[in-house]
């Protein structure tokens, strides 16, 4: 049973968050082991499994991005559990663009981060955050809407677009995190000086 089936939903991305939560609470009342404490060991094991499946489905579907990621894997027939995903490949154009930032980062990591360099990195990080936001808005907005209205023939193209956008976002996140770490360490030192 896939995550959409657990909630009795079609493979559509437009999901009403409040309705999903209501349904999650209803199904929890049905499956949660607490309400089967007096049942046979077999029934208890079933409740445990159903409850674990429900929790996993809710965790994925309530998050619009995780929902898309899951849908892509489902459509490609490689539905695995969380944690077992392959690292997506970043688009080549983006890699080239990031080359300079990566260099500055490497420098920062090896110890040298003066004030102008820090400012540049912080600005870069802000720009990338905005770009990540755009990518997410595109994923959850027009692309998701396109999926829900697409004909079967139109779906492969949307799936490809999803994959591209997801890979871009994942790559952006990694760079943003690295930048944050490089800057974050510095921030702490500044704070210490102030005291």
């Amino acid at each position, binding site marked *: 049973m896939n995550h959409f089936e657990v909630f009795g939903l079609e493979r559509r991305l437009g999901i009403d968050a409040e309705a999903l939560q209501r349904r999650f609470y209803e199904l929890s009342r049905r499956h*949660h*082991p*607490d*309400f089967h404490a*007096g049942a046979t060991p077999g029934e208890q094991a079933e409740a445990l499994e159903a409850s*674990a*499946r429900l*929790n996993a489905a809710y965790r994925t579907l309530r998050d619009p991005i995780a929902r898309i990621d899951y849908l892509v894997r489902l459509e490609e027939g490689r539905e695995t559990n*969380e*944690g077992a995903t392959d690292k997506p490949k970043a688009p080549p154009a983006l890699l080239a663009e990031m080359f300079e930032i990566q260099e500055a980062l490497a420098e920062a990591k090896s110890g040298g981060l003066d004030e102008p360099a820090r400012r540049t990195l912080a600005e870069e990080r802000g720009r990338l955050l905005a770009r990540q936001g755009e990518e997410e808005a595109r994923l959850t907005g027009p692309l998701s809407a396109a999926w829900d209205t697409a004909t079967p023939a139109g779906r492969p193209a949307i799936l490809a677009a999803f994959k591209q956008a997801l890979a871009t976002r994942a790559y952006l996140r990694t760079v943003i995190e690295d930048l944050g770490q490089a800057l974050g360490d510095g921030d702490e030192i500044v704070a210490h000086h102030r005291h």
Partner: protein
Amino acid sequence: MTETRLSRIIGIDLGTTNSLVAYVDEATGLPRVIADREGRMLLPSVVAFTPEGILVGEAARRQLVRRPQSTVYSVKRFMGRDYEDVKDELRYFPFAIRPADGIVKLDVGGRQVTPPEVSAVVLKALKERAEAHFKEPMEKAVVTVPAYFNDSQRQATRDAGRIAGLDVVRIVNEPTAASLAYGLHRLSEGVIAVYDLGGGTFDISILRVKDGIFEVLATNGNTHLGGDDFDRVIMLWLLEDIQCRHHAEIVRSGLDLARDGEAMQELRLAAEAAKIRLSTEERTRLTIPFADFTYHQDITRADVERLIEPLVARTLEPCRRALADAGLRREQIDQVVLVGGSTRVPLVRRRVEELFGRTAHSHLNPDEVVALGAAVQAQILAGGITDMLLLDVTPLSLGIETLGGIVSILIPRNTTIPTSAREMFTTSVDGQTVVDLHVVQGERELAKDCRSLARFELRGIDPMPAGLPKIEVTFLIDANGILQVAAKELRTGKAASIEVKPTYGLSETDVERMVEESFQYAEADVNARLLIEARNEADTVLTHVRRALGQGSHLLAEEERRGITSALEELEQARAAQDRDLIRDKTTALNHATEHLAELMMDAALKGALGSKRAAEIMESQ
């Protein structure tokens, strides 16, 4: 559907400092704490291993100063812990703690015990308290643990239950238990933050409470931060002050305060008492008598706040992280609830209110609310409450160690439980029949920085070329937050033959042996307690009679004096032996033999009083 009456389940708060047992009253539907015969709700989580037997609770607490080496307190700090985890704080404990194969053991009263065995003594006392209340055997319990307890700490708690003869049907997180108690009273709806600072542990949990569902959104904490640590910094400050101000006396007497278990225990208790008084008063005076001098000190609330401020600050970062994990800003929190005795400290309340930008409340007694919530959860499991459901989360990410010691996360922190993850494994050498798995819990990237939960061996794999076996391993975290691991070989379909074997912790055999030993103690413990009580009574009478003889033997005829002396000697002999009935009889006999002496002395005292009054009158008239 026919209603089947399920057996009664009690709710237990197994605390660092105090423990309680509660149940839901069928008539009112409300949870109640069960008191002991003296009407006390709190059972001090203290266990004394004396030559006469095991004492627990208030009786054990009284042994803290008398027998520091064999009286165990705050054992919760050692539950499910490895020696490495706790070695830095061992010097603050007067009893000996040794490493023992992934756990620790305590050397107390010539006996070696594990932390679950010590906790079992506390649990058993609560079980007996409930049995005395209901006049029927109690076999099932819900036991609370800090939300931030890891798998080993939870397992250790469940083992403690088994050793005490209790089936722990559910481990519940303390802050969420508290939210159930509040929820039952309809005191909370919306998004609530539960700030729980107890004797030794700190938790913050953020929940959404809606239509009877208690959904935990995020939890964070520190299992080694609590009121004990407040006491410790106050104690160390006092120690320094004493060593400074009474330097001369200390040098003269050759006393090494820091290494004197009794003195340190005395100081710790004084520090605790001062902290408690300063929660309601602005200043207090401490008086601690030592052998060669008496220490006096005036302490203000400001002094204590200055000392504990860094500790209180350490609770705030987990709060911010929990908010971030829940995806909430502080303005989105509807209520802040304070749980745990340490939230009575005014500075704690102040800092929490500043952090969340709103008033925090504790309408329900912070000492009792966790036990009350445990009783509510027990009633849910017993089928007595059907409109409330707790959806809790796993506090720490669960992962496995992969090549190069890197952790691959299978279940991220704050995932709603129960939850499961599947992962494929294979062999790396031709003909390999065993695969090792290292499961860790924590948020760090390298396995060595996380808490090692268990090393599992997958055994019984058919010999095949390397890489050919496909072993699917399922990691399931149940509603207790405890991990279950199952494995099957997909290629050969040999599901049952893959054995999953944890390689350390308390084994099933260990626990069974402890269960057996525990039942052996049980009867000995009751006898020991009665014997100690008889001896204490004998001591009281002996002291009085010796003093009376010293002061008033001239009032007695020779024959009567001999009678008393021989009764006294008989009691002394009886006291040295083990027969408590004989001690009782001889105590009564001695009491009886001295009744006349007591009367004579009373008369003499009255006359003496008149005599001195006359003397006073004479002096006045002069």
